[in-house]
């Protein structure tokens, strides 16, 4: 217990203090870490800038009849007030406004399925929906599946038990498609599972593992 390093609030190991001018390996590592941290931060700033540019071009000043930007969204059963641009996709709102980064952006063109969420129980590509178009509907993301006590959804648990994912990037989307299927068809055949997951690409090619997981979830549910 005592030999484990403690982690500070930033999730970083405490930096050793150096008094002299000599450069140690630890110091180089530390500065490299700061550098990488800086790059990540500026990367975030760039994409944030993109959002702002999108905001200022053409949408400054509400035209008469145009949409109100403040909307109330029901996400994972919680109502949240968000400032949403007219040209903002649901994936953008979820990831960059609500910090629900479980929803992934792969192609951003409705061609991969990584961004799949449920809108009123129906699986949909969140990269290809305007948030304003679905603001009165119930949105469910992968973060909303587990029970309040932390028990995983049967599909999530089955994904672990069957070693469903490989790299895991497409997994949230696969899970959302599977949950949408099991909600309307609790006992699907293998072909029905394959059809339901056909709108979700997996570049690792773990399709059979995913199919096995969903069938196991159906058994366990």
């Amino acid at each position: 217990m005592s030999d484990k390093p403690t982690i500070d609030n930033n999730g970083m190991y405490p930096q050793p203090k150096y008094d002299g001018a000599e450069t140690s390996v630890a110091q180089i590592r530390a500065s490299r870490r700061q550098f990488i941290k800086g790059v990540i931060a500026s990367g975030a700033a760039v994409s944030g800038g993109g959002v702002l540019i999108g905001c200022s071009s053409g949408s400054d000043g509400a035209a008469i009849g145009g949409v109100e930007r403040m909307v109330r969204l029901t996400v994972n059963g919680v109502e949240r007030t968000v400032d949403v641009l007219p040209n903002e996709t649901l994936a953008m709102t979820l990831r960059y406004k609500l910090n629900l980064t479980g929803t992934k952006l792969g192609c951003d063109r409705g061609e991969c399925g990584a961004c799949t969420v449920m809108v009123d129980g129906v699986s949909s590509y969140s990269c290809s929906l305007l948030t304003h178009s679905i603001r009165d509907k119930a949105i469910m993301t992968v973060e909303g599946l587990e029970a309040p006590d932390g028990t995983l959804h049967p599909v999530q648990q089955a994904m672990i038990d069957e070693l469903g994912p490989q790299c895991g990037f497409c997994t949230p989307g696969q899970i959302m498609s599977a949950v949408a299927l099991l909600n309307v068809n609790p006992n699907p055949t293998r072909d029905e599972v394959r059809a339901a997951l056909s709108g979700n690409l997996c570049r690792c090619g773990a399709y059979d593992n995913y199919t096995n997981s969903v069938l196991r979830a159906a058994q366990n549910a």
Partner: protein
Amino acid sequence: MSKDMMAGFELYQPDSVDGAIDLLSDAGQDGWALAGGNDSFDWFKDRVKRPETVVDLTALDELRGVQELPDGGIEIGALTTLTEIQNNAMIRDRYSLLADAAGKVASPQIRNVGTLGGNLCQDTRCWYYRYGVDCYRAGGDSCYADSPQGQNREHCLWGADRCIAVSPSDTAPAMVALDARMVIRNADGEREVPAEEFFIGPDIDIERMTVLEPGDLLTAVRIPADWAGARFYFEKVADRNTWDFALVSIAAAMIINGNNIERIRMAAGAVACVPRRLEAVENAVTGQAKDAAVASVAGQTAVRGATPFNFNHFKIPLLQNLVMRAIRDA
């Protein structure tokens, strides 16, 4: 691949069809009618099309749903999703051709959001045009697909006129085969256009795929009772079973009496800029026996006059076989 915002636009969400038409009429060329958005957002994200006014139709519940017409036909609201069409009991019972076609579109998630109106009105998939080059269809003065190096595997066999792109819709050939009527509303009122005349080629207007002009809205599709419960055949051949657009598709409706083909309508997708009605085949097989010999003649008849480009010769035997199968297996 950019993951930033699409370019800005003014978004309107009218709650009545009249309101939507007012907005679209006022906006004219700068307006864009948005339904499911699967086609629209590609254009917006790639900055190839930048409308100033986007009219989101999703609140127009009056344009959703399937209802029976007094004559026994059905009317389908333009905003009805492809999944709803695929699963609708009345459509499956009377016009399974359309349910089959809708079920072949793209992927489950796209069918869940994508609408019938959007699928019928979507723009062509020619990748030169989609990439935003200054081709004829985009108002320029050349065709990149119809050039010695042009990659035209997906392009047309008929109807080339400067542009050689094809109609990508899966439901469009089904609508032509079912002799559907497109209901179009604008500020002057409502009109009905037969499916066959709704789609237009580059010879009529190279910058549009349909007769819709700014201020026009496709509000519904009416399918007459004539073909209810007929024998149907739909097949789509694409490189992938999901997402992909047809290389060739075939939609046929026929009334069989004994073993005789009493009446038939047939249309092929992705072989011309419009769903191509195969009238020569219809004429050749009407009154004939529904057998392998007639099917073979039908296939040969279907491809007469096809003019392929460098990389799409394969579409000729493909269409021929699909027509043959349609007659034989329907």
